């Protein structure tokens, strides 16, 4: 057979799902992550008043998923036909399932936003007070459901691309877990920035301490998952071994080592752990490391998508 019975030409060239999808994956992750963190923290404290963190979480949760949808729909070749998904559901398709989840999640985040900013909203739109009255008793239930949907949103973005058998880097069960964890990490950073910058949260408040505390276990989980992903490729079949080259290639090495490892792991480690004594009181350093983490999580999505689609079978 001479190994000639194979074809190497394809009809669609290069990276088919590009940066808008990566941006969507990032925004969905931030939204879910921020939502999870604010709901859990609020519950844990038995919070009565809306804390800056609650406000930040629901603001981020709502705005980022809405923006994410803009990227997702905008990237379609026929965006005006988006409604076809809504009438022709295919329950075998992760995308259809995701769209169902999003259509529940977005209204939920909108309600969560309403709860968090009830006072502010009623100040200007007093006529909405009857809505507030209706919604108020439901708050614990809405929070509970939103928490679950936030987890689903993070995880589904992983499932969305992990079903693609052509790409070993994507086609792994670790991906949904990695996306939940990295979503938490980006959501954590975004919540901290927004809470302190716009809602006057004190840098050393209880909530900020919580954010700092959970940062580390999240990062350790993220490092472990990335490591396991790489190892699973190295010890895998021919295709998987080939896909491992993504980590060492010139093309994507920088994105991975500089972006993922450098921005999301090394910078926070250096500034918070090693130099913590000198820098932990500085706002500038906090914003810098938090932004670096978010950029790193974006690099992770970019790396997975671009390198994944480049090293196909």
């Amino acid at each position, binding site marked *: *057979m*001479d190994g*000639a*019975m*194979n*074809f*190497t*030409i*394809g*009809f*669609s060239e290069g990276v*088919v*799902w590009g940066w808008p999808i990566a941006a969507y994956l990032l925004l969905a992750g931030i939204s879910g992550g921020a939502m999870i963190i604010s709901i859990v923290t609020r519950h844990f404290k038995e919070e009565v008043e809306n804390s800056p963190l609650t406000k930040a979480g629901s603001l981020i949760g709502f705005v980022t998923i809405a923006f994410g949808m803009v990227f997702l729909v905008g*990237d*379609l*070749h*026929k*965006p005006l*036909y*988006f409604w*076809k*998904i809504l009438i*022709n*559901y*295919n329950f*075998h*398709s*992760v*995308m*259809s399932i995701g*769209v169902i989840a999003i259509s529940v999640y977005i209204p939920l985040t909108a309600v969560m936003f309403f709860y968090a900013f009830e006072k502010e909203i009623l100040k200007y739109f007093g006529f909405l007070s009857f809505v507030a009255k209706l919604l108020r008793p439901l708050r614990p239930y809405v929070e509970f459901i939103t928490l679950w949907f936030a987890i689903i949103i993070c995880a589904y973005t992983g499932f969305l*691309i992990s*079903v*693609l*058998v*052509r*790409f070993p880097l994507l086609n792994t069960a670790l991906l949904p877990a990695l996306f939940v964890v990295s979503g938490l990490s980006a959501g954590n950073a975004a919540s901290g920035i927004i809470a302190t910058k716009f809602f006057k949260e004190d840098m050393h408040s209880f909530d900020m301490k919580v954010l700092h505390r959970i940062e580390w276990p999240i990062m350790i989980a993220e490092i472990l998952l990335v490591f396991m992903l790489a190892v699973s490729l190295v010890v895998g079949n021919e295709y998987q071994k080939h896909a491992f080259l993504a980590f060492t290639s010139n093309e994507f090495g920088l994105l991975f080592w500089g972006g993922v490892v450098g921005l999301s792991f090394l910078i926070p480690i250096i500034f918070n752990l090693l130099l913590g004594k000198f820098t932990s009181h500085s706002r500038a350093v906090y914003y810098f490391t938090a932004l670096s983490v978010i950029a790193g999580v974006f690099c992770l999505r970019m790396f997975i998508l671009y390198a994944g*689609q480049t090293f*196909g*079978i």
Partner: protein
Amino acid sequence: MSNDGRRKFLKGIGLGSLVMSVGSYGVVANKPTTDKKSKHYAMIFDQNKCVGCTDCEIACAKVNKVPKGQFRMIIEDKTDPKKPRERRMVRVSCQQCVEAPCVQVCPSKACHRDNLTNIVTMNADDCIGCLYCIVACPYNVRFVNEETHAAENCNFCENTNLKEGKDPACIEACKYEAIVFGDLNDEKSKINRILKIKDSLRMKPELGTKPSLRYIPAVRLGV
């Protein structure tokens, strides 16, 4: 045929047909009908016979109105440069998977399995251009048609020649009988007779997609 199954069901003849019609319409929408009389169209590409004239490519593009510069099928020259006299051609086109990832992922059911023929085909109007099917296809043989802006694949001319009762365009065009088309569920079909006597391969069978395209590899003469 699947339509018969539905009719029988409506007449309430038996539980068997109930199971059958549920099987083919609902739960396992991606699987072809298992009804005995249903079709399983397949194609053989014989590397011994193909000379690489590309008549099939031209005929395909014409019949299926594929925009210039795009293809539903092409013939790739995989001749080993060290052995230029042993010509090796390979057909590149949709493998008509029985377990088709493209059908499974399409959120709008634009990429679907035709009810009558069981062929993986397109409904261009329902396509939203999300490209999910394109990244899901392990053979990279789908593309977005520049004119319809919908994804498409070789569908054995399901909505063109086949509908008119003709063979697919590539089959009609090939002067060397290098491609054979037929129904695997028909015991007496030519394609089954050939498959019985010749060894054939499927592309990347390890992926579990169960492709319907068979390739007969070139035999080396005079080794």
